[in-house]
């Protein structure tokens, strides 16, 4: 009996149980303090759809054996450039959104490829090098934003300053196009079919990809590179494809994020983008070696719901904004747990 319980706990994982329990406490508190639970759930769902694809971007790199993609800001930056070009050209609404993706993806493919070449030569330190390549590219792009040849007056500082504004309002362009598409209500919970649907569509695409010959080759390369080699699989190429896929997903992910948020954030904003995404997939039950779509969905739902609900609910009980602190502790605690859990790097 206790054995069975132990097994179940182990199967679900202690961190997930803790977070689920924490969430339960939050919702009970919300109910008791008379907050609108459906409202909280609606907000959470928006955050899930907003962040989901960024989390999904972790799957290809984990699967192909590179590990967590700490270099996510690279893809994010590509997405931002795509989003900017779309605005500069004056695309509006859905065309604007898709144009942003269309501009961003080829760029992400190129950047992802170059990134994979770099990571190949630093095997064993991918995570650390990835982090700092991500950081330094954010700094380089800061200089680029200052000097970039954009002309659209809504993008650049109005007077005095040089370069792009730090926060660009998407309202007139493609702000909230997905969020406002096919919205419906169940039990008082507002659900954006466009946003959630887009996220689930990508989940499905990635799921199907890992059922194809190429996807299976990539999984094999990640699970056991020597086996893969003996099966005639080009391990290096598989890693390249995985990193490119991750970078492309990150680029699309940030565009979805931005349209939902309503703003395009430049300069230092993308710096720490990788960490919440990494935390979410780990919370979902992924390890440094293995990640599934289910991990993505569970992790994003748990993590984002927690972040969304923590602020309004706790502010009724405690003073001040504890959600930022909770985010820091939970996300980094989760990454720490994953780093120290799996066998020491021998």
């Amino acid at each position: 009996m206790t054995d069975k319980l132990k097994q179940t706990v182990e199967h679900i994982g202690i961190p997930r149980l803790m977070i689920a329990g924490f969430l339960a406490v939050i919702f009970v508190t919300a109910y008791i303090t008379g907050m609108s639970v459906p409202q909280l759930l609606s907000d959470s769902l928006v955050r899930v759809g907003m962040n989901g694809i960024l989390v999904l971007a972790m799957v290809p790199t984990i699967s192909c054996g590179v590990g967590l993609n700490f270099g996510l800001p690279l893809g994010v930056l590509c997405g931002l450039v795509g989003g900017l070009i779309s605005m500069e050209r004056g695309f509006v609404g859905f065309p604007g959104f898709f144009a942003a993706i269309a501009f961003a993806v080829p760029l992400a493919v190129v950047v992802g490829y170059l990134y994979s070449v770099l990571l190949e030569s630093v095997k064993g330190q991918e995570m650390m090098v990835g982090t700092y390549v991500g950081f330094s590219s954010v700094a380089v792009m800061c200089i680029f934003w200052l000097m970039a040849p954009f002309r659209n007056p809504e993008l650049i500082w109005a007077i005095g300053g040089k370069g792009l504004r730090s926060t660009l309002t998407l309202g007139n362009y493609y702000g909230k196009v997905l969020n406002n598409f096919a919205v419906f209500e169940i039990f008082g919970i507002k659900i954006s079919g466009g946003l959630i649907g887009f996220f689930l569509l990508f989940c499905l695409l990635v799921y199907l990809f890992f059922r194809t010959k190429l996807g299976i080759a990539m999984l094999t390369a990640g699970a056991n590179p020597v086996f893969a080699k003996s099966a005639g699989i080009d391990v290096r190429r598989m890693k390249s494809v995985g990193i490119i896929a991750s970078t492309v997903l990150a680029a699309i992910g940030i565009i979805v994020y931005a349209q939902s948020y309503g703003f395009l954030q430049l300069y230092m904003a993308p710096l720490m983008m990788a960490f919440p995404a990494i935390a979410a997939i780990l919370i979902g039950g992924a390890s440094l070696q293995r990640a599934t779509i289910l991990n993505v969905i569970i992790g994003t739902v748990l993590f984002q719901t927690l972040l969304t609900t923590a602020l309004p609910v706790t502010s009724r009980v405690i003073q001040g904004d504890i959600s930022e602190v909770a985010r820091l502790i939970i996300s980094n605690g989760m990454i720490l747990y994953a780093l120290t859990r799996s066998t020491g790097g021998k």
Partner: protein
Amino acid sequence: MLLVLPVELVLIEGKSKNMERARRVLEMKGITKQYFGNTVLNNVSIDLYPGEIHALVGENGAGKSTLMNILFGMPVIHSTGGFSGEVLIDGEKVELMSPAEAMQAGIGMVHQEFMLLPGFTITENIKLNREPTTKNALSRLFRSKSLDYLDVPTMRKDARAALDRLDLAIDEWAPVAGLPVGYMQFIEIAREIDKKEVRILVFDEPTAVLTETEADRLLESLRRLAADGIAILFITHRLDEVMAVANRITVLRDGETVARLNRDEAVVERIAELMVGRKVEKVELPPRAKEPSDEDIALTIDNLVVDMPGEMVRGLSLSVRRGEILGIGGLAGHGKLGIANGIMGLYPASGRVSKNGENIPLNSPEEALSRGLAFVSEDRRGVGLLLNEPIDRNIGVTAMQVQHKFLKSWPHFLPALRLEDRAELRAYAEDMIRKLDIRCLGPNQPVRSLSGGNQQKVCIAKALALEPEILFVSEPTRGIDVGAKRLVLDLLVRLNRDHNVTIIMTSSELGELRKVCDRVAIVYRGRLAGILPPDASDAEFGLMMAGRVGKEAV
């Protein structure tokens, strides 16, 4: 390469006549050790006299390293239920529970892989963690030995003395990085003899990484140390070296002592035979319609060189007859394992390999696989399997990647994006599970939880999914229990007879080669030593494995 024995050795040899009276420095009596129900050592005994060089020979897996782990009290022994039998030092029973205790008891070990820190000088390495220190104000204040200064002059003096004992005129303050490998071995030895208490010195394959001249020098030092009165246990499978320095020789095979020889009664061929020999139970193999012959050659290997660490192939030529089971044997380290790994593209290779006259490009697993070759690796868990994946994925993935099997037919123009055909794969895996009698819960079971024998069957099924013309199988029965061994061998014979698959089987167990093969090729120092029929005598095999016969065709 028999060397003339130096005088002092002959003297000891004379003494050994009345060894009974001499005091044994080490005795290991009736040692039995089981790992998870597998007996790896069975009633093994060995003893050592001061000033003696005692060689311990045996194939890989014969139990040499387990015996040494027991001697050194390694944690792996105690964490797996300990052992039975006793260890005596100077006639007194001891219980060595850790390497530190073994060291205190006077046992030193010269490791096979160097335990040297490249950034340290020779002196620092010799005195590593045994540094003499001097007190200073802070260390007195905190009463901490950790804060003592290193006593560098004494360290250098000690190191110099140890090096001098080995007659090594090298600067004791030179960094170890960049020294030739041969010197590193000597520094290892210097470290051991610097320990004042060391009376027993174990050399674990010390010449494995040395050139011939370096090896000779090392043997010279061995004699010198023995003359100083140190008892030496010399583990090796280079029989020439055994003959050159050993006073006595103990042969281990399958965890048992098969022989103890005095030097004067030992000959290389006899030792080789003892190491590998097994009683061959002659089984009647099913007949074929047409016996394979040199008229019909399936695979030609010409001057193959394979850069596989530890198993180098240095210019091997061999022809494989269509439809035969060809065995490849030889002692460990002579390159028998390198052949299949080289041809299948897993290690850098050069030379010419052709199948049915068509050249097979080397260094590409894909090329080899797509030309009807398949390989069951000797490293089952490392290379052969995806341990966390289910049985069907393991069986199907190679055929899927190389031959586009188990895939849906759309999109035909882009095979990379075709979806896996789960139903087809599952059906195939179930069929294989039935045919090969793989004991499992179903095709979904991860292979990690299968037994060794069943894992091996999955590996064979994986190769069969490719429908190969030629199948390489390396160490097919390594690490699986006796019953499963027979099943696997029967399976190979059946494949050969019923499906006409040409099989090239590499194995350290000569017995099983002689049981199922049509011919047995013996590899010596990376080249073909000769090919023998399976019913050739033990002595013939022994001679050939020891490199005592020229190349002969059968």
